[in-house]
């Protein structure tokens, strides 16, 4: 929606409304499995877990591991809630700390 279709509305309100319209309802947004950084798990181990469990390539797994390491966390999967909980449990099984959250939260 462009600003031109909403005459008379101040620009900042207009942008706000535009953003609201673009956002999908909460129930439509997928869930995410997030892996968090810790000072204990070895980088090589995190890469191996991501390759072994998710079947990610070495490159993808390494990129995710580095994101966890440098940004403190990384989204490793996105989809239905039940599936994300299974992934989180699997990560806990390997000793990685993972949480589940709704995308865009």
């Amino acid at each position, binding site marked *: 929606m462009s600003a031109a279709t909403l005459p008379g509305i101040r620009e900042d309100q207009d942008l706000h409304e535009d953003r609201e319209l673009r956002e999908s309802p909460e129930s439509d947004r997928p869930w995410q499995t997030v892996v968090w950084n810790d*000072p*204990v*798990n*070895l980088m*090589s*181990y995190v890469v*191996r877990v991501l*390759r*072994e469990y998710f*079947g990610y390539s070495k490159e993808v797994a390494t990129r995710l591991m580095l994101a966890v390491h440098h940004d403190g966390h990384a989204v490793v999967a996105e989809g239905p809630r039940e599936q994300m*909980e299974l992934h*989180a*449990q699997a990560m*806990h*099984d*390997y*000793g990685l*700390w*993972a*949480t*589940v*959250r709704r995308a865009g*939260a």
Partner: protein
Amino acid sequence: MSGERTVVMEITLLEAAHLADLVRQFRDLIHDAESAAVPADPAVRRLVPDAYTDDPEAARQFRELTSSELLDRRDQDAQSVLADLPDGAVPTDPDAAVRTASIRLPPDRLEAWLRTFAALRLVLASRLGIRSEADHDDDDPRFGIYEWLGYRLDGLIQAADGAF
């Protein structure tokens, strides 16, 4: 992929005996924690962490559904490792101590070893209060064990990857 090959680990009888001792302590820790809804021991809590940071009720439900399964699996992994290790107490004879044993780890056994090494490190890190990768204390021998576990874990991963 990487998990398809059998890895052979050379370990001295001294290392093996100390590792077996650690793994037995680890099993005791898990058994003690299994009855609690929320484990009081922070080291065990790290093994069954919160899956929701912003929703205590969802975190509780998740824990209720997964915690005993996770701890059971830890125990099974620990039993596998003990079964693979040579029997015997910590050798007192120096010649026996440096004698090595070869442990063959097919893919499923290897996974149990990797998870157990990682879990032992998490427990030790909790006991040692490790907050950053740089934490170290030369006077505390437990740091030596912690670092040895990391060295062995990394070696197993490299071996499984075919780097050796």
